[in-house]
């Protein structure tokens, strides 16, 4: 596994600890770093990214995978948009494997797996699901079901056998695991900490996750994420051209 590359200063511009099925959305401008830390071990962060200025441009699963010949995300790879550009680069990563293909839980799955536990019974410990959390946060930016996209599951490891059968790997991350995403575009970040849909753990227990936003240096010409693939170099060029026109 690649070592942690700590190129972001320590003092965050913004911090928040997500508890319960914590959900969050916000616009983070180009050049800043979003740091997510698994505070308990075994966290899952469902993540979707959109170009904050033109939200019809968004994270694209296929372009991210085929552009980099990868099945899971990790340092030094990037999250690509559907317009040939880079939304975010993974500049540091102690988890080493982030699932890209399993999507999110929905109400039916949560009820089947954990049982029913509604607000009337549980007050704010009630069971939420990933899909509803995504839709709630999307709505605050004028987006809705048409804008649901295949999400990333940060901190989750799911492996495929030769036949394509998937297995969730329990215990993949320990407390303190973290991943840094340097935003290469002005980005609407939509996330929640609902458990992974294939996590076999029988208990409903989203883990605490800390979210920090930090100032970071712009990528240098020899930036390791930019240089990790020729495809990424071209996607960075496309991104620079986009901002040259908007500036």
């Amino acid at each position: 596994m690649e070592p942690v590359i700590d190129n972001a200063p320590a003092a965050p511009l913004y911090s928040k600890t997500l508890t319960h099925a914590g959900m969050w959305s916000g616009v983070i401008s180009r050049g800043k770093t979003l740091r997510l830390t698994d505070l308990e071990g075994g966290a899952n962060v469902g993540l979707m990214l959109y170009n904050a200025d033109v939200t019809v441009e968004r994270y694209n699963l296929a372009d991210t995978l085929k552009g980099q010949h990868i099945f899971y995300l990790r340092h030094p790879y990037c999250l690509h948009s559907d317009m040939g550009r880079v939304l975010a680069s993974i500049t540091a990563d102690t988890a080493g494997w982030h699932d890209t293909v399993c999507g999110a839980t929905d109400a039916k799955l949560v009820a089947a797996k954990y049982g029913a536990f509604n607000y009337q019974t549980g007050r704010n410990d009630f069971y939420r699901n990933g899909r509803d959390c995504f839709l709630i946060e999307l709505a605050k930016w004028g987006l809705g079901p048409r804008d649901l996209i295949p999400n990333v599951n940060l901190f989750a490891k799911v492996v495929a056998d030769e036949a394509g059968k998937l297995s969730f790997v329990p215990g993949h991350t320990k407390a303190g695991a973290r991943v840094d995403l340097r935003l290469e575009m002005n980005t609407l970040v939509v996330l929640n900490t609902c458990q992974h849909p294939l996590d076999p753990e029988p208990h409903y227990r989203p883990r605490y996750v800390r979210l920090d936003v930090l100032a970071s240096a712009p990528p240098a010409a020899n930036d390791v994420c930019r240089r990790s693939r020729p495809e990424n170099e071209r996607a960075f060029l496309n991104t620079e051209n986009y901002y040259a026109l908007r500036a």
Partner: protein
Amino acid sequence: MTRSPVEPGTAGYRLVVPAGEPWTHEIKRGQVLRLVDLEGNQAADTLFYDAHDPANRYSATDTIRAQAALYLTTGTQLMSTAGEVLLTIVADTCGRHDTLGGACSRESNTMRYALDKEYMHACRDSFICGVHAWRPDLGKRDITANINFFMNVPVTPDGQLTFADGVSAPGCYVELRAERDVVCVLSNCPQLNNPCNAYNPTPIEVLIWDPA
């Protein structure tokens, strides 16, 4: 691998979609849709929508999650973003179909191959024309992770993703039964920069049968 009991001659609808063209058509609940890879190794990039609610559409991740498997074949239920079954694959003489590789676009071609490949025809342009043929109020928001029938994108146990030569051959087909009224938007892939179409895009035949 599962063959279908129905004969092509009994289909109520038959059309050959030339290479590089979109095709948009409603499939009623209970109808069976067959796609035939006429000449072999041709990717048929395909989206499905609930015919009465385009926001409820095919979801690659919900389909993968529901079956805990990456590839699509006989028995796979194609799930929607609302967690409902849109169609079921009822026959397949190819063996596996991809839903990770997505569709080519002019923009992604610049990233994947070279900046000067931007002019080349691509599936996501066909998808835009394809959804507009159904409803002009739909657009890029409605075009997301698709199925690539007849395309082989194996993931290795160590997590590499490769575009392998097809497992399809001339005459291979896949058949789907609609579990609700759906609209199919297909782009017969024009990609010339990788082996997904054997560097020679060819026609796909579509057939539809009414419920038996």
